[in-house]
């Protein structure tokens, strides 16, 4: 049976993993290679490394970090943040990424999705969408770029459909409304995007406890869920989270 994936996300800047509620209050939380290895050993189904500052000067540091992290990781490894061109993507694949995630640059130039996909396969292209809807209906949820700071005027459902048509392999859907709240994923939005597409949807933003994952897999119909800060807030590791999901009847990879 195809299992629900738990994806461990590492926010990285200047070669170090940082934690905190996105961009405020960043604290040094360790070495990316070491943490990625620890998450994989604890049963993470996939590792995502996100370059949260993504400056031009930081690019070489990022490639070094990716290469170092990839060396010991034998589960899928996705890298995102600041991928602007097919060349940026190629450099990350060479460094050891299995998939790249594109966000703002794909909105600015949607042909980037097909350009990366035609060289590396559509399974290697994750389109990350930062969504905000406040208390409005899911149909009006809007795509934000530049780390969630800039509205684009594009509807999330429209953009997700276009991304699929252009050859995205998966959608990484982050609810900006839920992100950082620890009050649960936006299940309604996740389900709406999932049912509009045939490619897998990864839910992100809002996880605070194991029940939130159960909810997003059931009510949200998510294929995978991203866990970032949850491991700093009471759940020991991926294994403990998965054990709890298994207890509640969610199919997960165990033992792992």
């Amino acid at each position: 049976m195809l299992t629900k994936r738990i994806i461990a996300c590492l926010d990285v800047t200047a070669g170090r993993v940082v934690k905190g509620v996105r961009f405020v209050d960043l604290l040094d939380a360790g070495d990316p290679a070491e943490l990625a290895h620890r998450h994989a050993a604890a049963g993470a189904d996939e590792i995502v490394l996100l370059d949260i500052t993504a400056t031009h000067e930081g690019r070489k540091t990022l490639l070094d970090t990716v290469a170092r992290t990839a060396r010991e990781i034998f589960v899928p490894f996705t890298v995102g943040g600041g991928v602007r061109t097919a060349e940026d993507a190629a450099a990350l694949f060479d460094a050891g990424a299995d998939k790249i995630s594109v966000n703002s640059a794909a909105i600015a130039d949607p042909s980037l999705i097909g350009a990366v996909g035609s060289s590396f396969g559509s399974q290697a292209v994750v389109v990350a969408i930062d969504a905000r809807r406040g208390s409005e209906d899911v149909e009006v949820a809007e795509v934000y770029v530049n780390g969630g700071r800039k509205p684009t005027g594009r509807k999330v459902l429209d953009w997700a459909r276009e991304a699929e048509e252009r050859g995205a392999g998966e959608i990484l859907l982050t609810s900006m409304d839920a992100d950082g709240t620890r009050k649960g994923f936006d299940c309604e939005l996740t389900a709406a995007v999932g049912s509009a597409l045939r490619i897998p949807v990864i839910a992100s933003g809002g996880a605070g406890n194991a029940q939130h994952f159960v909810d997003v897999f059931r009510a949200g119909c998510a294929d995978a869920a991203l866990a970032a800060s949850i491991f700093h807030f009471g759940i020991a590791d991926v294994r403990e989270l998965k054990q709890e999901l298994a207890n509640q009847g969610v199919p997960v990879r165990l033992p792992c």
Partner: protein
Amino acid sequence: MIAVIDYKAGNLTSVMKALTALGAAAQITEDAAVVRAAERVVLPGVGHFAATARLRETGIEGAVREVIARGVPFLGICVGLQWLFEGSTESEATAGIGAMRGCCARFPEPHKVPHVGWNTLAAAPESRLLAGLPAQPFVYYTHSYRAPVIRETVGVTQYAGPFSGAVERGNLFGVQFHPEKSGDAGLQVLRNFLAVPGC
């Protein structure tokens, strides 16, 4: 030396990394002579079935047929497994090598495509490639087309029905999943492949 065949269809870094981590001396090549001289051959693959047309153009196909006939251990991964069959509906104009009977086809509606993630593999106990694994190991898949279950199938996965997760006949092996991305179970598969006596 292990020849890892490059046919410009995606990323070989992960396969090389896994082989290297297991202590194998592997070389990426597009040269039919290197394939002919190799002790083992790996044909990785992500991407489109049509990309395998390049194997014909570069003369690799002939070298592959030759090494398979000689009994050199050969492992096709993902599209590399599909190419062992007669063809794929992904590209009707591109034939496989027909070492395995049957044709690959896309997962039907309304299932999500691609099939991405960790799924169980029902492993045949007599398989040499899958030796030492639990009966139902989890392995990582990412693909939109799959091969039918045939006599040589040694690992079956269920998604929109059963398909070939692994095939095996003598020293000819194929896996639809990605052993280089399947954690310890995947590394065990590669270790088994490296341990198969050559010819």
